[in-house]
C-alpha cells in the first residue's frame, strides 16, 4: 500500500511539477546554461579563453561567497515554487483522497515519501550542484562546495517536513480576502464578477501581469528613446500592454465557464454581453489608463484606450472558438500582435479599432453558444 501510494504521490506532485514548470525549467536549465557554456562569441577569442569563461561561472559558484549567495537564493526560490505547487495540488478536490489514505501511513513513512518527492523535484538543481561540487573539489574549494550541498539537502528535508505538516493539517475553509470582506455590502454587477475573482484568487497573476506590462513599456521606451511621443510607438506599447494581459483574458474564459455557466440563460442581449463584460478590463487596466491620461493627454489616451479595448474584444472572442487551449490562444494572439505591428508601422494603427471590433463581433456572434466548456 505504501509503495502504491508513494507512486501516486510521485505522479501527482513530481510529474505534475515538471509538466507545469516545463517552460521555466527549459528556459533556465537549457537555454541559460547552454548560453553560458556553448555560445559562440563575437570576434576572435582564443580557445583557452573560451575554456576559462566556460569554467568561470561554475568556479565562481564554489569560490565566490557572493555568487554562492545568489545560488542559494535561487535554490530557495525553487524550493518555494516547489512548496507552492504541492500546496496548490493538495487544495484541489481531486487530491482530497490523500488526506484520508496516504496520511494513514506512519509519519516516518510519510516523511520518507515527501523526501523522495522533494528529491525528485530538486533533481535539476542537485545535478548542477553536483557538477559545481566536482569542479570545486578538483580546484580545492572544499568548504563552499560541501556547504552548498548541505544547504540544499536541508532545503529538501525542510520542504518535505512542511509538506508532511500541511498534508496532516485539518482542512479549514478559505478565508475571503480583505476586498471581498469589505465589498460584502456592495452590489456586485454580474459583468464585474471577474474583477472580484482576480482580486480574490488571481492576485499573483495580476501582479505578474502588471510587472510584465511595465517591463514592456520601459523596454520600448529605452529601445526607442528618441521617439518618446510618437503615436506609432504609443500604439505599439498599447498592443504590448494588451498582450501582457493575455493570461488574464484566458483566465476570464475559464472563470466564465466554471462559475458563470448560467449566464447564457440570462435574458441579456448579445450586444450587451459582447460589450459590457469589457468593463472588467476598465478596472484591471486602470493603472495603465491613468498613466496614459497623465502622460499623453485625453485625446491621444482615448485613441489608445479604444485600440486596447478593440484588441481585448478580439482576444476574448477568439476564446469562444472550439476548445481553444492556452498554447493555441497565446500563439493566436502573438500572430495578431505581429499583424498589429505591421498595421502600426504603416500608419494604419487607428484602422485596427473598427477592424478588431468587427472581427470580434463576427467571431462572437458565430460562437456565442459554443460547447467548448460543457460536457454531456
Amino acid at each position, binding site marked *: 500500500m505504501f509503495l502504491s501510494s508513494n507512486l501516486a504521490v510521485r505522479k501527482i506532485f513530481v510529474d505534475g511539477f515538471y509538466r507545469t514548470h516545463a517552460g521555466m525549467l527549459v528556459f533556465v536549465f537549457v537555454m541559460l546554461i547552454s548560453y553560458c557554456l556553448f555560445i559562440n562569441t563575437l570576434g576572435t577569442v582564443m580557445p583557452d579563453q573560451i575554456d576559462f569563461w566556460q569554467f568561470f561561472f561554475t568556479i565562481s559558484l564554489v569560490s565566490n561567497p557572493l555568487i554562492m549567495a545568489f545560488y542559494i537564493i535561487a535554490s530557495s526560490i525553487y524550493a518555494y515554487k516547489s512548496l507552492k505547487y504541492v500546496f496548490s495540488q493538495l487544495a484541489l478536490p481531486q487530491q482530497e483522497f490523500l488526506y484520508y489514505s496516504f496520511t494513514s501511513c506512519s509519519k516516518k513513512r510519510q516523511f520518507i515519501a515527501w523526501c523522495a518527492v522533494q528529491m525528485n523535484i530538486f533533481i535539476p538543481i542537485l545535478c548542477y550542484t553536483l557538477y559545481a561540487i566536482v569542479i570545486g573539489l578538483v580546484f580545492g574549494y572544499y568548504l563552499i562546495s560541501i556547504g552548498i550541498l548541505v544547504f540544499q539537502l536541508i532545503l529538501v528535508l525542510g520542504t518535505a517536513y512542511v509538506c508532511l505538516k500541511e498534508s496532516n493539517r485539518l482542512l479549514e475553509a478559505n478565508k475571503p480576502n480583505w476586498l*471581498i470582506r469589505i465589498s460584502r455590502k456592495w452590489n456586485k454587477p454580474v459583468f464585474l464578477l471577474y474583477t472580484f*475573482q482576480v482580486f480574490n484568487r488571481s492576485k499573483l497573476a495580476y501582479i505578474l501581469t502588471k510587472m510584465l506590462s511595465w517591463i514592456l513599456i520601459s523596454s520600448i521606451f529605452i529601445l526607442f528613446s528618441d521617439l518618446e511621443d510618437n503615436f506609432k510607438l504609443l500604439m505599439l506599447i498599447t498592443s504590448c500592454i494588451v498582450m501582457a494581459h493575455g493570461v488574464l483574458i484566458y483566465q476570464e474564459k475559464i472563470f466564465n465557464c466554471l462559475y458563470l455557466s448560467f449566464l*447564457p440563460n440570462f*435574458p441579456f442581449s448579445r450586444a450587451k454581453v459582447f460589450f459590457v463584460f469589457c468593463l472588467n478590463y476598465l478596472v484591471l487596466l486602470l493603472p495603465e489608463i491613468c498613466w496614459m491620461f497623465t502622460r499623453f493627454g485625453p485625446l491621444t489616451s482615448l485613441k489608445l484606450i479604444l485600440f486596447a479595448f478593440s484588441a481585448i474584444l478580439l482576444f476574448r472572442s477568439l476564446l469562444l472558438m472550439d476548445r481553444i487551449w492556452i498554447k493555441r490562444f497565446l500563439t493566436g494572439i502573438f500572430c495578431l500582435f505581429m499583424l498589429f505591428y505591421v498595421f502600426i508601422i504603416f500608419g494604419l494603427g487607428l484602422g485596427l479599432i473598427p477592424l478588431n471590433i468587427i472581427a470580434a463581433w463576427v467571431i462572437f456572434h458565430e460562437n456565442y453558444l459554443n460547447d467548448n466548456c460543457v460536457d454531456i
Partner: protein
Amino acid sequence: MLHFNQFEKSYFDSLVLKIDNIKIPEGIFWIKGSNGTGKSTLLKAIAGILSFKGDIAVGTVYLKDHGVPYRKLVNFAAAEPLFPEFLSGAEMINLFAKAKGAVVDHAEILVAEIGMTDYINNPLGSYSSGMLKKLSLVLAFLGKPKLILLDEPLNTIDTESLEVLYRWIKEKHEKEKVSFLLSSHQPFDSLKLPGLRQISIENKKLTLNF
C-alpha cells in the same frame, strides 16, 4: 408549450440528439435516460446555454429569434451547480432576481421555506454541495418563467428540502401554469407530483410516453 423544430445537437460531428418536430404540452415531465444519453445536454439547449441546429420555442417565442424574451420564460438549475465562491447566497439571489425580473420578497419566502436563512449571507465558498443545490433550486424559481428545467433535482438535497421542492413544483404548476422538465435517474414520487408524465431519451431520440 414547448416546440422543437428540426432540433439537432452534435458534439464534434457526433450526433447526440435529434428531435424532428415535437410539441410538448403544459405539464410536469420526467425526462428518463441512462448516463450519457444527453439529458443534461437537452436541458441546457432548451435553457439557451448550448448551441444546436434547428429551433426551440416556448409558446410562440422562439429562442433564436427572440433570445432575450425567451430566456425570461425559461429558468434552469444545473445538476452540479458551481457559483463564484466570493459571492454570498443573498448576492446570487439579487443577481438572478434582477436578471429574471423577480421580486426580492418572493426570494425571501423561498429561502425561508427551504431552510437557508441561517447561512444565506455567508460566502458560497463555505457552502456544501447540498447547500449549493438548494440555492440553485431557489434561483430556478425566481421571476415569472413559463418553463423550469431542473437537472437532477433529487441529487444531494435532504428529505425535508425534497418535500419543499415537491410542493413548490406542484403549487407553481397548479397556480401559475408553469411547466417543468425534470431529469433524474431516480424515480419521482408520483403521489407528490400528480399528473407527472414521462419522456424517454433512447437511441438519440425523444419519445413521449403519454
